[in-house]
């Protein structure tokens, strides 16, 4: 993790501002001290340097011109969506141009015959969902990261965002059919498209999740899926985490593929209860939200099977939502969780790691131990079907040394995930947060292979510089030149 960056940037020269304004228009360049300062922040616990300037382009052509201008000025640049990333991926690591894509927020096309939409990167995830719902297309854009009400599709693509419905429907990458990308040199290319399986490598899949380090995505062709005929939601309460985890394995072993399988531990249940009054019984040590969807006939049988499996694994209570309102109430228990945490602490560190599904309970147990050793509290939420755990560590950053303690605990958590056969990030990406932890997962040759592709597209490391890879790799590059 990189240290805090000092604020020692100078005001941008008027000449640069004039050139930026010539590209995007006068009202679309931000360069006051305050504006530049706030772009040194995002939703992470990290802080970058203030931006040199912020430009808000309105078209692909403008993005390409900005990128070319940056190159001609020897200036680095970073694309930014809503800034909801928690890995610091959008933070300026040097004196650079921020290209904010919020103005490029048009839904360009809905193509029901091909089950696709074409959107600009600044479209907010939930806005697309609401647009499809309100117009009655009968389709939905499925990926639903926790930040969906504010985060943009472009940001979701950059980070290959996950969500609650990945077990059945996959992560963002599985829903992206094609991209238009402005490459770091300013060239515009299209990869993928409405026609599936074009010959050659899957470049679309390669660009998704590259965290804006290989170019700036300016148009996205995304899959939409017909709405399921029926959705049935259950809430099962268990005496402890182990029994809930056994139920998860049991459900999967029975050949049932739920749309979502979300796990809450006792501490998160208590906090949620305090915030939104779900009324969890005291005997419940964990809660599992199970959502099944599909054709109505088969579904009711599966709901019955899930009930049996939960009962066999000592569930103390099982509720099945009979109405959409009741289902919303069950989901509230999960969706309100982050907000509920905010009541107990000014700052919350969200850890993100994955382990094989059958080791989730063990991983959460060890996460609790790791945090306890450091005198930290931890609250556990997990996308249980994916083995994606999110230990939440509340802390007070005004207490000296507290943040460092959290970061140390997070490192141990990630090492544990790798040791258990998992990964250091399930859905939030590397950014500046986990650069050094990449070595837990990849050896030198693997890192070199990926880094060589970064340099192939961006030899001078101007496109979201100094991200993803261990800092030493960039330092070596500066010594030796590209």
């Amino acid at each position, binding site marked *: 993790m990189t240290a805090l960056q000092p604020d020692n940037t100078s005001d941008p020269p008027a000449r640069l501002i004039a050139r930026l304004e010539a590209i995007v228009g006068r009202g679309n360049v931000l360069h006051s001290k305050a504006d530049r300062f706030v772009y040194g922040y995002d939703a992470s616990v990290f802080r970058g340097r203030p931006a040199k300037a912020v430009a808000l382009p309105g078209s692909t052509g403008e993005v390409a011109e900005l990128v070319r201008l940056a190159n001609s000025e020897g200036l680095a640049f970073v694309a930014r969506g809503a800034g909801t990333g928690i890995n610091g991926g959008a933070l300026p690591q040097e004196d650079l141009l921020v290209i904010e894509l919020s103005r490029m927020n048009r839904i360009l096309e809905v*193509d029901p*015959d*091909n*089950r696709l939409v074409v959107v600009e990167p600044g479209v907010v995830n939930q806005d697309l969902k609401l647009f499809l719902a309100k117009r009655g297309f*009968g389709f939905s854009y499925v990926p639903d990261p926790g930040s969906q009400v504010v985060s943009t599709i472009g940001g979701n693509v950059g980070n*290959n965002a996950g969500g609650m419905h990945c077990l059945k429907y*996959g*992560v963002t990458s599985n829903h992206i059919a094609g991209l238009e990308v402005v*490459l770091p040199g300013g060239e515009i*290319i*299209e*990869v993928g*498209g*409405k*026609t*599936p*399986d*074009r*010959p*050659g*490598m899957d*470049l679309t*899949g*390669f660009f998704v*999740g*590259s965290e804006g380090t290989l170019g700036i995505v300016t148009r996205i062709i995304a899959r939409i899926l*017909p*709405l*399921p005929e029926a959705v049935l939601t259950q809430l099962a309460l268990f005496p402890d985490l182990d029994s809930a985890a056994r139920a998860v394995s049991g459900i999967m*072993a*029975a050949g049932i*593929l739920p749309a979502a399988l979300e796990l809450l531990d006792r501490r998160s249940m208590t906090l949620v209860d305090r915030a939104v009054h779900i009324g969890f019984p005291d005997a419940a040590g964990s809660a599992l939200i199970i959502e099944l969807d*599909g*054709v*109505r*006939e*088969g579904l009711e*049988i599966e709901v019955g099977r899930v009930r049996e499996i939960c009962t066999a694994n000592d569930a103390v209570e099982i509720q099945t939502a009979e109405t959409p309102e009741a289902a919303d109430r069950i989901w509230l228990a999960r969706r309100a969780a982050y907000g509920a945490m905010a009541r107990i602490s000014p700052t919350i560190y969200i850890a993100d790691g*994955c382990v094989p599904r*059958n080791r989730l309970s063990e991983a959460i147990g060890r996460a609790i131990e790791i945090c306890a050793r450091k005198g930290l509290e931890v609250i556990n939420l997990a996308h249980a079907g*994916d*083995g*994606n755990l999110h230990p939440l560590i509340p802390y007070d950053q005004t207490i000296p040394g507290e943040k460092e303690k959290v970061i140390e605990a997070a490192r141990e958590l990630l090492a544990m995930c790798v040791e258990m*056969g*998992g*990964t250091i*990030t*399930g*859905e*939030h990406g*590397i950014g500046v947060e*986990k650069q050094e932890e*990449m070595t837990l*997962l990849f*050896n030198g*040759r*693997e890192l070199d*292979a990926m880094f060589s*592709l970064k340099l*192939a597209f961006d030899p001078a490391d101007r496109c979201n510089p100094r991200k993803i890879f261990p800092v030493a790799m960039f330092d070596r590059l500066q010594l030796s030149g590209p």
Partner: protein
Amino acid sequence: MNKSAVLASPAESLLGADGVHTSQAALAQHALDGLSPSVVAVPDTSEGVAEVLKWAHKDGLGVVVWGSGSRIGLGARPSRYDIAISLSRLNRIMEHDVENLTLTAQAGVTLLEAARTTVAHNQMLAAGWPWSRRTVGGLISANRPVPKRLLYGSVRDQLLGIRIALAEKGLVGFGGKVLKNVAGYDMTKLVIGSLGSLGVIVEATFKLFAIPHRETYLAAALASPILAASLATRLANGPLRPACLFLLSPLAAERMAKAQKLAGAAREWTLVAGFDGRSEAIRRQIADARALITQAGGDPRPACDTIGEAGGRCLTAEEESPPSVLRLRVGVAPGDVGDTLAYLETESPGDEPIDAVADHPGGAITLLFSLPEHPGESQLTETAGRIERIRAWLDEHAGFAVLEQAPAPYKSRISPWGRSSGAERAMGLIKSRLDPKGILAPGRFPEMNGHLGPLS
């Protein structure tokens, strides 16, 4: 000394005598577009593959990788072909993680072998038919359309991790066993469809699915490809959850009728819809699908619970084709499948019936041309002109057409890839870094190889 003899000795020092074949029969068996390799390397470990690549990289030897060979005809004639690497001995299942529903297999494992392993636990690899002799490595390299992609996704949706031998950097691994993984670049995606041009896949991890309680297929005869395709769109876009939707031209339907009673009467455009799931859900979906078919003026046949290997081969055009057949793989957006088939019908000279099957959700049409094996000049010109016309039409519809198989005289006249998509430069750039001397599948993607320079 001939080249075989020269290369045999270093190859044997890496793989042992039983890992290297230089017999005429072995070399001929691995010939490509009239070109034979000098040695066939048959490593039995991943490390062996890496050693061979290291040697080839050092000495600048051209390498082509073989799985089952079913799609080895894809791509241009290699510009250099010294070593064929056969993955037939890389055939071990490394791990079937029953609880986590994943399978890690060496690249030479066939779908059939994978199915034999997973069936014991009522699980399946959904990336292809369970009877297929195709290898998992080949499936990834050629990015084969998944028959039931509507329900299970395509190869890119099912592949979780790979181990790959790179020319310069040796064995590396990307991705893993977990469903969500966003650490670093998604290198697994790059090898999908790369036809062995970036490295040699030695191991792959896939997610598995539970074997459905039941699978049922329903076929319907329709008056035209447009009607059949619009019905397919309706079936895919409503509340039903079909696993697959295939369209067969009358000629292909006739073949299907012979192989399998499902298609019923021959010589009609036929839509085949497949459903996987619980019996109750399938019964309801078959009933609804029948109603939709009848509404569309189609003639639904009795549903059928299995199509077997013969039927499956018809649907995905995997019958053994004689060497005289030219196989064109056309890709369009799913919504354009009907128009494309209608165009292909009208385009056919002398109203000759077309032999085509289409995977509707995949927008994948396989078109078979039976041609004289030893054509005269006029035949060659006519066939090349016809494919040129088809490609021009597809250009207007954001489609493409690649040659999957063609008798040698045709292949030398017709570009295997057709028009450039514009992304080749980026692909060339990637290749130049992972295979700096261009030893892997050399010349097979000429469009890409032409763009190995810096990007901007």
